[in-house]
């Protein structure tokens, strides 16, 4: 971080993105930065080797963050010009692979046949104009604790493919705005095994259009996965007690009596810890119902 810039506090970013007030006054003035738009992954990796370089996906979170002066990169490296990182395809084994720079609107349209629940999730992010810019790689790398994609990625047991390695979703997310990504590492694609049935149920926070609570339930031949976003101070998580109950019996009633400990839930003006904990149960039941 350069002189004059404060290191970003995840809580400031969270509060700003969810409609909180700006920590600094001049919101229309970003710190100055250079801009590069490489056309290959190799060139992007090279450009990101510069000190304080920052990758730019669709910018739908990063640009507001820059406007709030919560980040001060020396150079933004746009990933939008890399053709090999855009698009949706189904591999021979049936897995759905989405390029890291693919906008949500493209996923919503092109994955609708192969993985309808994930396409529906993509179609609920933000609003139409945001979905035309925001990308899956940007969302997953940012790991906003109320973003939709982390729930779909963790709930599907997807694999995050970067320029250097492949990481299982279970090992990827490390808490609010934190992942295992190294400096300069780029999400080139995300690979989703397609479940037998799945559903994402989002309780919308209508001002920010993020999830107040969102639950992704996916039923595979070898078990059920339940991933929760919007609720925990630690970001997206798997509700393993619910998974165990649903593995015994895949019905909403199987969740009766199960509850989430509210201690670790997010509390803000939109909902208390107890309210979010309650919503997790309700949205999980709805997701199971929708998957039947």
């Amino acid at each position, binding site marked *: 971080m350069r002189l004059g810039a404060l290191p970003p506090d995840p809580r400031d970013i969270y509060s700003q993105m969810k409609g909180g007030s700006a920590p600094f006054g001049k919101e229309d003035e970003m710190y100055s930065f250079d801009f590069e738009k490489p056309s290959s992954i190799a060139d992007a990796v090279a450009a990101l080797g510069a000190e304080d370089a920052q990758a730019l996906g669709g910018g739908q979170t990063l640009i507001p963050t820059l*406007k709030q002066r919560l980040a001060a990169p020396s150079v933004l490296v746009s990933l939008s010009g890399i053709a090999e990182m855009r698009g949706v395809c189904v591999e021979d084994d049936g897995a759905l692979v989405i390029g890291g720079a693919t906008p949500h609107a493209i996923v919503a349209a092109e994955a609708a046949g192969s993985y309808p629940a994930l396409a529906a999730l993509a179609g609920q992010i933000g609003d139409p104009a945001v979905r035309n810019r925001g990308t899956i790689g940007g969302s997953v790398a940012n790991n906003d604790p109320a973003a939709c994609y982390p729930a779909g990625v963790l709930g599907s047991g997807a694999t995050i493919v970067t320029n250097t390695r492949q990481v299982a979703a279970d090992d990827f997310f490390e808490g609010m705005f934190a992942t295992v990504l190294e400096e300069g590492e780029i999400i080139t694609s995300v690979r989703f095994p397609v479940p037998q049935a799945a559903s994402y149920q989002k309780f919308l926070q209508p001002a920010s*259009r993020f999830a107040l609570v969102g639950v992704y339930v996916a039923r595979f031949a070898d078990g059920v996965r339940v991933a929760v976003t919007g609720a925990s101070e630690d970001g997206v998580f798997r509700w393993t007690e619910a998974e165990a109950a649903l593995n015994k019996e895949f019905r909403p009633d199987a969740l009766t009596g199960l509850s989430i400990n509210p201690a670790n839930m997010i509390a803000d003006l939109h909902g208390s810890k107890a309210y979010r904990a309650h919503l997790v149960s309700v949205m999980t039941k709805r997701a199971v119902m929708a998957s039947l």
Partner: protein
Amino acid sequence: MKVSMTVNGRLVEGDVEGRTLLSGFLRDQLSLTGTHVGCDTAQCGACVVHVDGVAVKSCNMLALEADGAEVGTIEGQAHADGSLSVIQQAFQDHHGLQCGFCTPGMVMSAAALLKDNPRPTEAEVRKYLEGNLCRCTGYHNIVKAIMAASGQDVSHIAAE
């Protein structure tokens, strides 16, 4: 840094900083002030323009990201003879605006919607406008105008 793009069919060039927003380039360098900046946080939609055929919030996109792109703004919506587009005329006919601040974004979003979905239902129109805020009208006549612009009968929608 140099940037060039096609705006409303005209090739334009400019010199911008990395941090220059598309909205700023359109307004400050091209004097296309029909693109409004309302919230400057990508929530209100007053700054919606088309980039390569899709609606985007120009206050949330760097000008350099639009290098080489086809950009459409509200100034390019009217016909060459100056007469209003079908959508603009419908907004006038059905009183789809009061103060008018949100209107450029509303019209650009409506145009993007009708390109993909020429005969939307009322629910689809309301859903599509989730990223466009209007603090005057209560949306009713905006929705009505867009339904009318799509060639559908709106006589059953009561005037408000």
